[in-house]
């Protein structure tokens, strides 16, 4: 079980999380939903160890063993799709990068640089890179933004097949329906579920 206890995060004068507590089962797909700016991204960043809370504690997560998909693609303009995958693999084996590209339905795009990819393709590459990094927990922030619904469904099933607990933030009803559980958030500041 992933536990968040009395988490408080403040950006300047703005209180984003105010003594927020939540328990998330460490299995299957868990969706975080809520209006824009309610604190979903901040919550995921706290869970990934990328944002230090001003107060409270996180348990059940080793930040060194999580993979985080940022809300922006954050691709390196000078690396090809294959290189993006190979860069995060600890010991890349022959064909492994190609398998992860196929995971995100990017076959044939291995030699493409980010500038040559559409918005949806870039998002899928970022998702494939995150999945390839792997770990004990995947934290995905808007993983299917700009991805068509049929691909979204297929890639979601592949994500489920990884057998790793996944917590994702999304606005897409299709993704919410496909998850094992949904946690509706209200904020800001985020105080309760």
């Amino acid at each position, binding site marked *: 079980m992933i536990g968040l206890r009395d988490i408080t995060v403040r950006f300047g004068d703005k209180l984003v999380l105010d003594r927020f507590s939540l328990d998330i089962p460490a299995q299957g797909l868990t969706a975080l939903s809520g209006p824009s700016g309610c604190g979903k991204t901040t919550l995921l960043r706290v869970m990934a160890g990328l944002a230090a809370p001003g107060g409270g504690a996180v348990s059940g997560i080793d930040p060194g063993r999580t993979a985080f998909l940022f809300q922006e693609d954050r691709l390196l303009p000078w690396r090809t799709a294959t290189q993006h995958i190979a*860069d995060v693999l600890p010991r890349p084996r022959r064909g492994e990068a190609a398998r992860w590209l196929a995971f995100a339905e990017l076959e044939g795009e291995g030699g493409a640089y980010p500038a040559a990819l559409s918005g949806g393709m870039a998002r899928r590459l970022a998702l494939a890179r995150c999945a390839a990094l792997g770990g004990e927990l995947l934290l995905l922030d808007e993983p299917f933004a700009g991805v068509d619904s049929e691909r979204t469904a297929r890639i979601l099933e592949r994500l489920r097949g990884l057998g790793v607990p996944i917590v994702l933030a999304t606005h897409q009803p299709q993704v919410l329906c496909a998850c094992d559980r949904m946690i509706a958030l209200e904020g800001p500041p985020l105080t309760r579920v």
Partner: protein
Amino acid sequence: MKKLLNTAAPLAFWLLVWALCAWRVGRALLLPGPLAVGKRLLELAGTGDFWLSVGATLGRVFLGLGWGALAGTALAFATHFFPWADRLISPAIRVVRATPVVSFILLVYLWVARGAIPWVISGLMVLPVVWGALCAGLDNMDEKLLELARAYRFSRLKTLRLVCLPALRPQFAAGLLTAFGLAWKSGVAAEVLCPPARAIGSRIQQAKLGLETADLFAWTLAIVALSLALEGLLRRGLGKGERA
């Protein structure tokens, strides 16, 4: 054809202006015409001394460019990552940047051997330019990509190789191109003021002392032609690694 015309037409125009000015002045000692200068340049280019002087000057300029770029790069990283280095080194580099090249040439003349002055001076002119370009690049480094590198557990070396160096490449290339022009001009200026045994600057100095104006023009033309050609090669070399 159109490209050739676009290049040749302005060149022909300025050669004509030069020829008219030389004709109006009427004294080759003050202003030789383009034909006389071209003829002299061809004569010089047929001698071994010309090419040895060009080679020696090029060697000094590239030596200066090399050590200046290396030192500028190392100091940019040092001043960016270590606040104490920034406080200590940055003001000194700004002083170097603001000091007239002639002051440096005369000072360095007192401290180092005559043959070493041009490449020491070239390097001193290159260092602040490369340092400034890289500092700007490091200051404007995309924090989101650096956060990605941390989140994706890249080692420091991997972050440097995959994120920092490629991101700095455009600034480094622009700085190096600017620095090359400075290295070339300051190196030849140093050769003129402190002439080594064999150098373009020494030949210019000799031409000046002997009132051989056609020689002076011919050597200057050779410098301009070499500078443009090498800058073009450098631009092409630096651009080749960049992805379209």
